[in-house]
């Protein structure tokens, strides 16, 4: 007798159909262990890390003091608002911003961003959106504060060795200007000395500036590293 016709096969979800043949039985004990989850709910107020063992321990060199000849941010702000054409004022703004990095004035650096400002270093030049893209940096102001908090923490171990940077900014071109915003493109070169080694990073900044008082605030700083696709020998600890 011919085999009875099977009832219409239930639709098997493609995922299960494809992978069921691979479903090799897992050891029940492993399964059981994987079902028991411990969740660490939040950061703790209790002492942890190295301070738990030695409360006054810090591996790092004293926090960097800006060079005596560095002008204060206030003096810079005054210089910035004191007339001059737009090209000049924008250039002064960019130069001052890079000096804040070299002087490790992290809070002043963050303050130059608008409240909704973003620092973005895309992973590839063709990317257009800072959110939803794999990036090297993609930080709004609260996340920039996390980065500042990390590098100024007494036990930021990777900050223990000598570490200084030197930025040059040039080729400043105003791409567009409106009542609302100014888009300006420039080139940068950063040398970094860490322990006994010098590294070089170069590339393009693209600042979208909005007017704030007599000066500017950064709505978006896009940083395209020209060597961002090469393997990184160590990592970048702070904004470039």
């Amino acid at each position, binding site marked *: 007798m011919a085999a009875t016709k099977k009832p219409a096969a239930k639709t098997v*979800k*493609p*995922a*299960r159909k*494809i*992978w069921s043949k*691979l479903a090799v039985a*897992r*050891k029940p*004990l*492993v399964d059981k*262990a*994987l*079902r*028991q*989850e*411990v*969740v*660490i*709910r*939040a*950061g*703790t107020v*209790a*002492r*942890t*890390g*190295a*301070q*738990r063992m030695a409360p006054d321990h810090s591996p790092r060199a004293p926090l960097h003091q800006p060079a005596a000849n560095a002008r204060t941010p206030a003096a810079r702000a005054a210089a910035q608002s004191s007339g001059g054409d737009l090209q000049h004022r924008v250039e002064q703004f960019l130069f001052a911003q890079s000096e804040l990095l070299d002087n490790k004035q992290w809070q002043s650096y963050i303050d130059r961003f608008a409240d909704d400002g973003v620092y973005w270093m895309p*992973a590839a030049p063709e990317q257009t959106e800072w*959110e*939803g893209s*794999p*990036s*090297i*940096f993609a930080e709004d102001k*609260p*996340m920039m*504060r*996390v*980065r*500042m*908090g*990390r*590098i100024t*923490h007494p*036990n*930021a*171990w*990777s900050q*223990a060795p000598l570490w200084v940077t030197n930025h040059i900014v040039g080729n400043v071109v105003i791409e567009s200007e409106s009542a609302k915003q100014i888009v300006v493109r420039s080139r940068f070169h950063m040398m970094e000395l860490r322990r006994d080694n010098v590294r070089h990073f170069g590339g393009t900044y693209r600042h979208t500036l909005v007017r704030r008082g007599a000066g500017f605030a950064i709505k978006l700083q896009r940083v395209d590293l020209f060597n961002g696709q*090469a*393997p*990184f*020998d*160590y*990592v*970048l*600890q702070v904004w470039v």
Partner: protein
Amino acid sequence: MIHEAIPNLQKFVEPDRVHRLVYTDPDIFDLEIKNIFETVWVYCGHASQVKKPGDYYTLMIGRQPMVMVRGKDMKVRVLHNRCPHRGVQLCGNTHGNTGSNFVCSYHAWSFQLDGKLEAIPLMKGYDGTRMTRDNPDCNVKAAARVDVYRGFVFASLSPTGPSLIDFLGEARVGIDDMCDRSPEGEVEVVPTCHRVIQHSNWKFFMENQLDSLHPSVTHQSTGVAAGRVEKEIAAAGGKAPLYYHYLSTFASTFEQWDNVQTINFPRGHGVLKAYMGLRPQDPDTLAYEKLLEKAYGKEKMEEYLSRSIHHVLVYPYLSVQSPLQQLRCLRPIAPNKTLSEIWHFRLKGAPEAIYRRSLWYYNLVNSPATMVNADDLENWTKGQWGLESNGGDWVSFHRDYGRDVEKDGVIYSQKGTSEAVMRSQFKAWSKYMQGEAA
């Protein structure tokens, strides 16, 4: 015995400690390349990296430059990146499309995408020699074995040894967990690979991955800083996004970390169990869970989403962080130099919000501006320097030694901070270095 054995192994590896030379000695490194990296199944890439015929990606298996390529028959193959004529590399870029053939830049020997000889200019010149078209020496040499597990492509340069499924063993759960989180049961690579050089022996990374004592020490600065901003956002009436939690948990107490257990499989593979609680009940997650439920049914969906995995190690080179769809693959270069390749994946058929949630981890923890690995790399560099010195000979793995619970070859650490992880990895290492399959 498939390979040469290390002489006097017992001089280097004891059950509770290892000699510093296993991290620093060039001869031991050479033998690792031969007995381990050029023998075991090595991850080459994801099939979605090479979508169209002719698409290729180059990679290293041990010291062998290889190329993963999609054939006209849509099969993914792994070939030596080397022209059989005079040895010149056929693919000169890290990735691209080679067209319908490989063509050598030196004398234009050309090869089909499966490595078979297509043509040689002025072929008549070979009349009467042994280089006839049917001589296999005229083809590009292929990896001895290639296999694909749920889209993840592996190759072995050894014609014998365990199958891919056997090699992965229980560590398959890393790939399964990642794929099962997609309503279609598959993932797709995001074509951005971060590459970071570690100035340390590859073992530092592998040991560190399941070392739950180090996070609150090494990453305390980032954990505390993220926790502070997380609280500021809450105090201002907001709710910090989940990714602050990725960072703030690092600053937990030793006792909390001690509760995050490891499971250690044969062959050195292992799991660090989850601790971040990655199943919030926001609308995006709930919508995503609905999709999974539709695809697999409620029971399976629950099973998949409640697997307690932070990441899964495939010893000796791969870390799969399945709940956040990240993957880190090591390519050892020298005893004190290791390249890490860092990828992430999209869950096919899952909402964009779920991708973005995992992307934050890729950007904050795994990018070349990482706020986390910056301090790991510092440790490993200094660790390598310490082990290269004569200041002491032994590396201690004594924590909770003698208290491992082993069932069916699987070691369940009673304490999260147990150094069972390293002891288990060195068990596998010893077997490989004695010339056996681990």
